[in-house]
């Protein structure tokens, strides 16, 4: 679902000054009242929480803030999070490229059904996402319990389970960013390249990819942010064993409920920076796209 939204959010061209056309403009007091309500709502629900994270992280001093990152469990959780992202993002990158290529470059029956299936992970509660993999891979209750036990393979309460749940949750993101960009690009340039004798891979690498590189880049960054931040699905499959299967979001929860709130907020501030950087990149790419349109 988020993908539908990010696709829809093209950069708004600045609205023309409305004061000159009083007939289709609201009175100034209504305008400012609405601006105050809208901005006030966002300040209360978005800006203050963001500020609060950094305030809470630093309020006991910079030394304590940095001490958080010397805790061996915190370091393990950070490594775990990086590993999970390093597994799930490339997998979804390959999938996203294939899905976007199939959906935008060809006409076939059942396309809208395929897109609906692609969106399913947006509609499923993260907790249920975790549960699905437990039902399949648990060594006590899963479908594959016997073969997994015999082969001594641990998937649930271990890294593979965390990676699986994360892949599921982040599955649509890259495809969803690429599809509208590739759709807007059309097929003409590919036709031209192929007519001029380029092979399929060459066309893909030298024509298609350069055209969609920014959309692809943002898709990867967004997918990465979601992979590093996933909580519900990972909580269900990981067992949250400190120092073994704890990721950053899980360790934040552990710290918080162990009353180490400064440390919890310190780790949270790192993930918040990642989120802010993701938003900044999104806006940078949209600004570039808007400028390119303006020039053209």
């Amino acid at each position, binding site marked *: *679902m*988020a993908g539908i939204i990010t696709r829809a959010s093209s950069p708004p061209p600045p*609205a023309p000054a409305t004061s000159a056309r009083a007939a289709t403009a609201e*009175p100034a007091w209504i305008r400012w009242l609405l601006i105050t309500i*809208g901005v006030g709502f966002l300040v209360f629900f978005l800006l203050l929480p963001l500020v609060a994270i950094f305030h809470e992280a630093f309020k006991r001093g910079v030394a304590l803030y940095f001490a958080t990152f010397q805790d061996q469990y915190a370091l393990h959780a950070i490594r775990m999070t990086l590993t999970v992202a390093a597994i799930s993002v490339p997998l979804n990158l390959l999938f996203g490229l294939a899905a976007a290529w199939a959906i935008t470059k060809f006409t076939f029956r059942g396309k809208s059904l395929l897109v609906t299936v692609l969106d399913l992970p947006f509609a499923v509660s993260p907790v249920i996402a975790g549960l699905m993999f*437990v039902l399949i891979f648990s060594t006590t209750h899963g479908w594959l319990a016997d073969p997994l036990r015999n082969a001594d393979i641990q998937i649930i309460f271990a890294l593979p389970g965390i990676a699986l749940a994360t892949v599921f949750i982040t599955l649509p993101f890259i495809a969803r960013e690429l599809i509208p960009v590739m759709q807007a690009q059309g097929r003409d340039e590919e036709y031209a390249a192929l007519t001029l004798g380029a092979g399929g891979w060459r066309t893909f690498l030298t024509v298609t990819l350069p055209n969609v590189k920014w959309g692809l880049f943002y898709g990867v960054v967004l997918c990465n942010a979601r992979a590093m931040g996933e909580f519900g699905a990972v909580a269900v499959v990981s067992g949250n064993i400190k120092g073994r299967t704890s990721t950053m979001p899980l360790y934040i929860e552990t710290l918080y409920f162990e009353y180490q*709130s400064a440390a919890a907020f310190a780790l949270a501030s790192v993930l918040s920076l990642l989120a802010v950087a993701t*938003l900044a990149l999104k806006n940078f790419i949209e600004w570039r796209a808007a400028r390119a349109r303006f020039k053209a």
Partner: protein
Amino acid sequence: MNSEAANQRTQAAPDPKPDKARRLSRRVIPGFGLSMGITITWLTLMVLIPLAAVFIRTSGMGWEEFWRAVTSRQVVASYKVTFGVSLLAAMTNAVFGFIVAWILTRYRFPMRKLVDALVDLPFALPTAVAGLALTALYAETGWLGQLFYPLGIETAYSRTGIFIALTFIGLPFVVRTVQPVLEDFDREVEEAAASLGAGRLRTFVSVVLPALVPALLTGFALAFARAVGEYGSVIFISGNMPMRTEITPLVIVKHLENYNYPHATAVACVMLVASFAMLLVVNLLQRWSESIGQARG
């Protein structure tokens, strides 16, 4: 499992050789087989089979036990909290999200760009971090909690807390569905209404608003669907008291922690059916929205 999975697969796979596809099978652009193969295999393995697992596990448990599992007092109380509070949060987002979309497209004010960028924060911020931040803010000693507690409003560890968390995570949906429609809206229609003597309010209610209703409803449904499944942000701020502030995803987690897999699966099955129903509604709404756009286009 296999028959169900195979069944799901044929559903997802487009019929390989309908007339149009056959004509296009000598298509110019290569890579149909490869990209389609990867897409369908991956979706089947990662999405369809795991989802089928929930339904198949449930179907194996017998009607009576299923019914007992999904209608126990604790679970029913959690449905009320989850769906009730999600509905309230989505309605709040419909109202305020509409205002935000309106001011972002229609007005100019200082830092408009920054405000616009901030709207996407709930998409990018991990839910656990959001829950942590909102709890710090709205707890009794928090910056905002200090304002509400003297008034007798408990903003944390209560349903109000759940409402705050669900409003936060659903916030971008209405803004980002209404905003593009509002941008494309033809101002000349409004001018026509005004020149025909309609007041500003009349123009808004009978000209602008009807065009935005499908987008507004879509955003509302998306925010609602997202809120119903939310877990991470809520568990920090809700206090998680059974019967009072326990959401359904948490009930599933608690069943799992007690190794009560059948009941966890049964409740999950109910949630999935609800989610799919909402997905269907969203798809229908979007189709409606597009048809209006084309009719006007």
